[in-house]
């Protein structure tokens, strides 16, 4: 008769682990101590040694835990560096934008000054064009729309409950169609080349990020605009936004709206004047960035 193999012999490692998780040393040491108690001075020295070793181990253990939990100093330093760089560059960009605006004002003033004496008619025409293209600040009566994201209770909001770029585009196009003369979204003046689009969850108007509540101000005759909006599809679109997605939309007429200018227009296309017609055909224009 051969020795009987245990059914779970292959599991002996697991069995050992499960049955005897505790170090057998505890029981052995206990038995030894009971059998042969140590003398008092022996115990004292041992206690001192034990205490020292235990304190050292405790420091090492909690040190390890603290090290694991806290982000390393290098990580924090590099993060701080990045934050500094971001704020520094933002400051630089703001300064440059301010300088740019000041320059534009100066150029416009000089232009007006020069034209006033030489060609007042041209200046008047230029003013008209600038007004229509949104280059200069405009004042007048109009309508103010306010679109607010649906309340999300702090949870990450559903994309549909946020105001999207398409919502603003529909409203703005509706306003243009209804006879608006000048439109600004959250204080950003729209021109013929201003895009309204989403990047992730942020809406960018003319490459400037804007956030909820979105205020769309349109200068024009309030009554005409309201009537034409109601006749078109825009008002039903806004009603749908409110009923289906919980986006709050409010409208009010304003007697005095002040929209900022979009700044001096950039020269994008130019054509040589006073040359032979064949030459003008060939040089298709000089573009500047």
């Amino acid at each position: 008769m051969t020795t009987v193999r245990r059914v779970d012999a292959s599991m002996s490692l697991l069995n050992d682990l499960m049955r005897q998780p505790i170090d057998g040393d505890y029981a052995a040491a206990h038995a030894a101590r009971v059998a042969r108690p140590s003398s008092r001075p022996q115990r004292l020295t041992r206690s001192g040694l034990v205490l020292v070793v235990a304190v050292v181990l405790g420091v090492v253990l909690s040190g390890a835990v603290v090290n694991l939990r806290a982000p390393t100093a290098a990580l924090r330093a590099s993060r701080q560096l990045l934050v500094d760089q971001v704020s520094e560059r933002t400051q630089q960009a703001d300064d440059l934008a301010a300088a740019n605006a000041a320059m534009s004002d100066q150029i416009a003033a000089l232009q007006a000054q020069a034209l006033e004496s030489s060609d007042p008619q041209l200046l008047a025409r230029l003013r008209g064009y600038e007004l229509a293209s949104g280059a200069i600040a405009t004042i007048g009566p109009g309508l103010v729309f306010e679109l607010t994201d649906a309340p999300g209770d702090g949870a990450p909001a559903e994309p549909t409950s946020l105001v999207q770029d398409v919502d603003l585009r529909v409203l703005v196009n509706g306003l243009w169609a209804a006879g608006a003369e000048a439109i600004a979204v959250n204080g950003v003046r729209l021109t013929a080349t201003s895009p309204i689009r989403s990047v992730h969850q942020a809406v960018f108007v003319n490459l400037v990020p804007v956030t909820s509540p979105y205020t769309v101000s349109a200068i024009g005759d309030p009554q005409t605009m309201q009537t034409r909006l109601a006749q078109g599809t825009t008002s039903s679109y806004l009603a749908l936004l409110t009923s289906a997605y919980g986006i709050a939309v409010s409208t009010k007429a304003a007697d005095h709206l002040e929209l900022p200018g979009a700044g001096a227009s950039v020269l994008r296309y130019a054509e040589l004047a006073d040359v032979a017609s064949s030459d003008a055909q060939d040089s298709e224009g000089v573009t500047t960035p």
Partner: protein
Amino acid sequence: MIAVIGLLLGALAGIFLEPSVPTVLQPYLPIAVVAALDALFGALRAILDGTFDDRVFLVSFLSNVLVAALIVFLGDQLGVGSQLSTAVVVVLGIRIFSNAAAIRRHLFKA
């Protein structure tokens, strides 16, 4: 008991002193901490069994931590560091669980 008190004192001191761990040792910290946890649970069970011994506690604590770190170090040198880490974590995890079960039986008689 002296060992436990000493360990607590040391742990408090460590929290306030925040000793820096050399970068070379950083990869072995998680395993070392798990091994230390295993030793602590074993000690708690021994206390409840009435067989606790300071010397055994410290020796098992130290050897647990060192052996665990050593295994991971060897694994790193052989290119199987993450697998060996998993093995160590599994073994220590089982020990912690069964020690916790024994402690539970002691405390709640269930």
